[in-house]
C-alpha cells in the first residue's frame, strides 16, 4: 500500500527561482526509499514538504499525498494531525535539533503530554521504553539530563526515540548520520533498521552517501538540481545507472571494497608516478621526507582531567609518498597534523623534514620562511580557510612574493600558471572567495600551498566538506600534482575510502594513539587491530557488490571535460 505519493511537486521562491522542478516519488508501507543527491539538489526540501514544513513565501505546485490526504492544501488542524499520528522526521544534527535548554525527558514526553493528553507518569514510561528500544544505556537517568551532557550519537538516539513517540507509519530521515562518526553511524543505522522492521514503517531516507543508500534502501531516487534524475531498485540504479548524472556520481564515489573499482586505487593505478619517483631512489631506501618520532600532546584544562590528544605517535613518509591518517573525531589526527605544520607545539618528540630537524620555537623570519617552505597545509573548510577580503590571485601572489624575489609581472604570470595547474582559469584570479564554489576555493587553497613549493603537503580533511563529485575532482587534482611534482602528502581523513584512493600507506588512530599502520590495501583487506576492523565494518556498503561502471564513467568524465 502506498503511504506517500508525491507527484509533480514544484517549489518556487518568491523571486522566481525554481528549487524543485516536478518531483514524483512514492513510498509503500514497510519500504525503505532513498533520496540521494548532492547539496542543492532539493532533497531536504522534498522531505520537508511531506510534513508541510515549508515556511510561507514558497510557491508550491503538484501534490503530496500522505495516507491519501493532501498535505499541500491541508488545513492547520489536519497538518497537526498528520504530524502527530502519521509521519515523523529525524533531522541531521541532533545537537541543533533538540532544545538545549530543556531536558531530554521534556523533549521526549512533550507531545505525549501536550497533544495526546497522557499523564506525565505515563509519558515518562513510554519515553523510557522507547529509549530502551533505541539502546540508550541509562534511560531513567537520561530523562533528567540536558542535551549538552550527551554525546552526538546518544542525542541522535534521543531524536529517534522522540520521532517514534507518535508511532508514525512513515519515518523521514534527513541525513541522520552525516554529523556522526562512522562507527556511530553504523549503530544508528542499525537502530533505524531494527525499528523500521519491527514496526513495519515506511522510511524515506535522505542522504548524500551513495554507499549508505545502497546499503539500506530498497528503492532510490537520485536527485540533482531540483529534479529526479533516475529512480528504481537500489541495486539496479547503482549497478547499472542509466542517467549520465548517476553514472558520474557512482564513479565519483570512493569505496573501500577492494573488488569493484579497478583503476581507482593508487596501488595499481595512479601510483605509477609514486613508484616512478621511488624507483629513482630505489637502490638505497631513501631517507624519509617527513619523519615524526614520538610526538605527544596533552591539553591541560582548568578543573578537569587533562586530555591526552596525541600519545607517542611516530610516522614517516618517503619522498613522493602519501600517508593517510585515519581516525574518528577525538582521535588526535588533526592535532597531529597541526603539530607537524607547527600550528601547535608538541610536548615531546622530534619532527624532521628532508632530514633536517625542525626548530621547535620559530623565532626569526628566516626560520619561519624556511619552515613554511618545508611544509604547507590545506585546511578542512574551504569557506573559512581563505581570507574573505583577499582575491584568489592576490592570496597566491602574497604567498609567492613572501617566499621569492619575483617582480609583479612574473608573480602574476606564476599565479595564472598555478591556477591552471589546479584546474582554474586566469579569470578566477580576480574572484573573492565568496563568489567561488567550495571546490574552487579548495583548489585555490591548494594552488596557494603549491606556490611556496613545499616539500610536504598536509591535507587536513581537505575534501570532507565537499560534495562527492567535487571531492573526486579535487582528489584528481592532488593525484595529478603528485604525479607531476613528486609531492609528498600527509592526508588526514575520517574517510577510509578517500584515503584508499590517494594514499599508499595508512595509519589508524584511536584516542590519541596509532593502533595500526601498513600499506593501505593490506590494511583494508586484512586489518589486524580490532578497531581497524570495526572501522572497516562500519563503513556502509551494499551486501551486493556494485558491478563496475567505473570504466564507462571514466569515459564519460573525459567527455565532460
Amino acid at each position, binding site marked *: 500500500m502506498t503511504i506517500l505519493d508525491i507527484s509533480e511537486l514544484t517549489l518556487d521562491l518568491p523571486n522566481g527561482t525554481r528549487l524543485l522542478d516536478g518531483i514524483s516519488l512514492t513510498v509503500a508501507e514497510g519500504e525503505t526509499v532513498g533520496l540521494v543527491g548532492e547539496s542543492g539538489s532539493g532533497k531536504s526540501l522534498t522531505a520537508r514538504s511531506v*510534513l508541510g514544513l515549508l515556511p510561507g513565501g514558497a510557491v508550491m505546485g503538484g501534490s503530496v499525498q500522505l495516507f491519501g490526504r493532501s498535505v499541500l492544501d491541508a488545513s492547520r488542524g489536519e497538518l497537526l494531525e498528520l504530524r502527530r499520528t502519521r509521519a*515523523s522526521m529525524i533531522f541531521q544534527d541532533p545537537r541543533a535539533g533538540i532544545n538545549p535548554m530543556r531536558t531530554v525527558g521534556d523533549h521526549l514526553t512533550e507531545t505525549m503530554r501536550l497533544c495526546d493528553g497522557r499523564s506525565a507518569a505515563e509519558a515518562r514510561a513510554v519515553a523510557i521504553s522507547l529509549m530502551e528500544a533505541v539502546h540508550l544505556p541509562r534511560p531513567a537517568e537520561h530523562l533528567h539530563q540536558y542535551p549538552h551532557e550527551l554525546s552526538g550519537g546518544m542525542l541522535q538516539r534521543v531524536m529517534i526515540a522522540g520521532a517514534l513517540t*507518535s508511532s508514525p507509519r512513515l519515518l523521514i530521515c534527513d541525513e541522520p548520520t552525516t554529523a556522526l562518526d562512522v562507527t556511530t553511524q553504523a549503530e544508528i543505522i542499525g537502530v533505524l533498521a531494527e525499528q523500521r522492521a519491527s514496526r513495519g514503517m515506511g522510511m524515506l531516507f535522505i542522504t548524500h552517501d551513495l554507499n549508505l543508500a545502497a546499503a539500506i534502501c530498497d528503492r532510490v531516487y537520485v536527485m540533482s538540481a531540483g529534479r529526479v534524475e533516475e529512480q528504481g531498485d537500489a541495486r539496479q540504479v547503482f549497478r547499472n545507472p542509466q542517467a549520465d548524472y548517476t553514472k558520474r556520481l557512482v564513479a565519483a564515489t570512493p569505496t573501500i571494497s577492494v573488488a569493484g573499482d579497478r583503476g581507482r586505487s593508487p596501488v595499481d593505478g595512479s601510483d605509477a608516478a609514486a613508484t616512478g619517483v621511488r624507483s629513482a631512489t630505489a637502490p638505497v631506501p631513501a631517507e624519509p621526507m617527513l619523519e615524526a618520532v614520538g610526538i605527544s600532546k596533552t591539553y591541560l584544562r582548568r578543573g578537569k582531567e587533562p586530555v591526552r590528544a596525541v600519545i607517542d605517535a611516530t610516522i614517516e613518509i618517503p619522498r613522493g609518498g602519501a600517508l593517510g591518517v585515519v581516525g574518528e573525531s577525538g582521535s588526535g589526527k588533526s592535532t597531529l597534523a597541526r603539530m607537524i605544520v607547527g600550528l601547535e607545539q608538541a610536548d615531546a618528540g622530534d619532527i624532521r623534514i628532508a632530514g633536517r630537524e625542525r626548530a621547535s620555537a620559530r623565532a626569526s623570519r628566516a626560520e619561519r620562511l624556511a619552515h613554511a617552505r618545508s611544509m604547507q597545509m590545506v585546511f578542512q573548510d574551504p569557506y573559512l580557510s581563505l581570507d574573505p577580503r583577499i582575491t584568489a590571485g592576490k592570496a597566491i601572489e602574497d604567498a609567492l612574493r613572501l617566499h621569492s624575489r619575483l617582480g609583479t609581472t612574473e608573480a602574476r604570470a606564476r599565479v595564472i600558471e598555478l591556477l591552471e595547474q589546479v584546474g582554474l582559469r586566469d579569470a578566477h584570479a580576480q574572484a573573492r572567495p565568496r563568489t567561488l564554489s567550495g571546490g574552487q576555493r579548495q583548489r585555490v587553497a591548494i594552488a596557494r600551498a603549491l606556490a611556496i613549493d613545499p616539500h610536504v603537503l598536509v591535507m587536513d580533511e581537505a575534501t570532507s566538506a565537499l560534495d562527492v563529485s567535487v571531492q573526486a575532482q579535487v582528489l584528481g587534482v592532488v593525484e595529478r600534482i603528485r604525479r607531476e611534482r613528486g609531492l609528498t602528502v600527509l592526508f588526514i581523513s575520517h574517510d577510509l575510502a578517500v584515503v584508499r584512493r590517494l594514499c599508499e600507506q595508512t595509519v589508524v588512530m584511536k584516542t590519541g594513539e596509532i593502533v595500526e599502520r601498513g600499506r593501505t590495501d593490506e590494511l583494508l583487506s586484512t586489518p589486524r587491530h580490532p578497531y581497524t576492523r570495526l572501522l572497516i565494518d562500519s563503513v556502509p556498503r551494499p551486501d551486493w557488490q556494485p558491478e563496475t561502471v567505473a570504466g564507462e564513467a571514466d569515459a564519460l568524465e573525459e567527455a565532460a571535460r
Partner: protein
Amino acid sequence: MTALRRVAGKLGALLLTLFLASLLVFFSRFLVPGDPLSFLLRGRKPSAEAVAQVSAQYGLDLPPWQQYLNWLAGVLQGDLGRSLQYRQDVTEVIGDRLPVTLGLVVMAGAIIAVLGLTAGIVASLNRGRILDRAVLVGLTVLGAIPSFVGSIVLIAVFAVQLGWFPSFGSGEGFLDTVYHLVLPSIALALVFVVLVGKVTRSSMVEQLGREHVEVATSRGLKRGTVIRRHVVRNSIGPILTVSGVLVAGLLVASAIVEAAFGLAGIGSLLVQSVDRLDFPVVQAIVLLVVAAFVTVNAVIDVLEPLVDPRAAAGVGAR
C-alpha cells in the same frame, strides 16, 4: 559544588570591580590640579569652621592612600561624608531623595518591560511583514528621542496643552505620586523601550530559525506551544543581559528627567550638587549608581544558569 564555585567566582569578580571603581571615584579628585582644600571649598567662603570641618573629614594632612582607607571604612559603615550645601550627612540627603528616583525607575521599568517585550515579540512573530516593518520604523524613531526631548514634548502636549498631567513635582501620597510620575517615567522609558524591543526581536528571530524549533513543529505541536516552550524561553538570555545595562542607564537618565519635571530625586540632586560644587554628594551618588550597576549585573550573571543550563556547565552557550 561547581555551582557554588561559580557563584564564589562571580562574587570575587564583583568585589574586585567594586574595589577598582571605588579607587576611581575616590582618586578622581586628585586629577584636579592645585590645592585639594580650595577644590573642595570652591565657591564658598573658606570660613575657619568649614576649613576645619573639611580638613578633618577628608584627613587632608594624611597620605592619599590613608585618606582612601578612611573614606572606604566610612563608606562601608554607611558614612558618605557631609554635604557642603545642606550641612547634613550625605546619607541623609540621599535617603530623602531616593524614594522618588526608585519610584520613577520602577515605573519606567514596568513600561519598558511591557512595551519593549511586546514590540519585540510582535515584530519577530511577523518578521518580514508590514507589522514588523512598522514596529521597526517606530522603534528607530522612538530610539532617537533622547529623554530630555521626550520630557519637553510630553510637558508641552500633556501637561500644558491638554492639562491631563502635572508638569512639576512629585506629589503627596501614593496615588498622587504615581500620577505625578506618569509623564516622567514615560520620558525616561522611551529610549530603553527601543533597546529592549530590538534585542527581544533579534533574539526571538534567531531562535525562531533554530532547527530545534523546526523539530518541535514537525512533531505536531501547535505554533503557540512551540513559541512558548521553545522560542520565548530560549530568547531570554540576551534580554537579561540588556536589562542589566538598563539599570545604570535608568538611574543616570533619571537626572535628566527629574531636572525637566522638577522632581526631587537623586538625579536632580546630582545635577544640583555639581552646580553648587558639593563634591561629597557627587562622589556618593556616582558610587551608588556604579555599585547598583555592578551588583545587578553580577546577580544576572549568577542567575543565568537558571535560564540556560549550559552556562552552569561552562559549555559555550549557543
